[in-house]
């Protein structure tokens, strides 16, 4: 196993303190070292005041979203050597208020989910492709969206206009429209049929690129628009 010293330029900011700045740390890394592990090593060995969000360490909780060399990534699955750069720049996500260092305030993210008054975020979805074990009606699994906010950070429109509903909430809306489970999804379609809803998307597909979980929020936004287009034409022809 080869080891190498890698430089990390980390965004630092403390409330009430100096203006934000990048601080450089040198960390001994090997092939298995992820950016998350390197940051934890910095925290342990060099600067105990560095804070960041992390939990599951395998791209399933979505807490360690940040920008690594400018790209939206989950730090837990980015291996330092695979980046191929001698210096790794680590910054918090875009378009979110920064609490401190790499920690952003997730409230605006969840505000969007609560704004609709409907259970957008589903903890589980039906899985029907497998023969179900006795005693169960159907298999359920957690939804693929891990609420990491990376798509919101990557979205150019979020950078333009903070009142945009955003890719994550729009993708979640589509999940309800696609599979309403007894809910009336028409009000949700009304909600996204607006300037700040799915029509605001400029088809840049940054969200699809950023999503670590294969949700493809961009595709979901387009699905919503197809549904709304059909609805508009139906209304236009009086049906």
């Amino acid at each position: 196993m080869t080891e190498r010293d890698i430089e990390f330029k980390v965004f630092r900011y403390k409330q009430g303190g100096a203006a934000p700045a990048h601080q450089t740390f040198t960390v001994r890394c090997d092939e298995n070292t992820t950016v998350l592990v390197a940051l934890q090593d910095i925290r342990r060995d060099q600067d105990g005041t560095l804070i960041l969000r992390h939990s599951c360490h395998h791209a399933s909780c979505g807490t360690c979203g940040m920008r690594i060399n400018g790209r939206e990534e989950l730090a837990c699955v980015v291996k330092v050597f695979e980046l191929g750069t001698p210096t790794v720049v680590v910054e918090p996500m875009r378009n979110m208020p920064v609490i401190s260092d790499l920690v952003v305030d997730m409230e605006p993210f969840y505000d969007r989910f609560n704004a609709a008054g409907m259970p957008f975020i589903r903890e589980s979805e039906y899985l029907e492709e497998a023969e179900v074990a006795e005693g169960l009606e159907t298999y359920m699994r957690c939804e693929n969206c891990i609420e990491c906010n990376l798509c919101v950070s990557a979205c150019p429109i979020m950078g333009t206009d903070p009142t945009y509903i955003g890719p994550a909430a729009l993708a979640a809306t589509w999940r309800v429209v696609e599979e309403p489970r007894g809910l009336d999804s028409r009000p949700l379609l009304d909600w996204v049929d607006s300037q700040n809803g799915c029509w605001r998307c400029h088809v840049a597909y940054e969200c699809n690129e950023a999503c670590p979980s294969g949700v493809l929020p961009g595709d979901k936004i387009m699905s919503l628009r197809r549904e709304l287009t059909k609805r508009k034409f139906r209304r236009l022809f009086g049906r």
Partner: protein
Amino acid sequence: MDNIQPTTDPVRPKAPLRSWFDVRGRSLSTLAFALNRLTAIGLTIYLFLHLAVLSLLLRGPEGWDQFVALAKNPAFLLLDVVLLFGVVYHMANGIRVALVGMGVAHTRQKSLFYVLVGIALVAFVVGAVLIFVE
């Protein structure tokens, strides 16, 4: 660091349009969009110039034919090439955005981009050659 807001209150980013042209780590579709917007601005300006120029027709043959002579000098032809690029690109990407934006073939938007912009580039090269040959 411009797009990071070191505050506990959600505030608006400082420069609304700058984020569009921050291309670090951005996808092809963002570049496609940025180019679409640039060509859109160019074409809008051109559209109104074009309408204004057409008023020369009302001044009779002298005014118009003078303009036609001007438009045939090489510097003007170069502008025509730029315009042609703007038109074919905006058309090709526009078809993609219109289809994808209505949820038609949206899961194949990348291939759509390559095919349409590919066709557009071929049309552009042919058109550009024609402009200079004639």
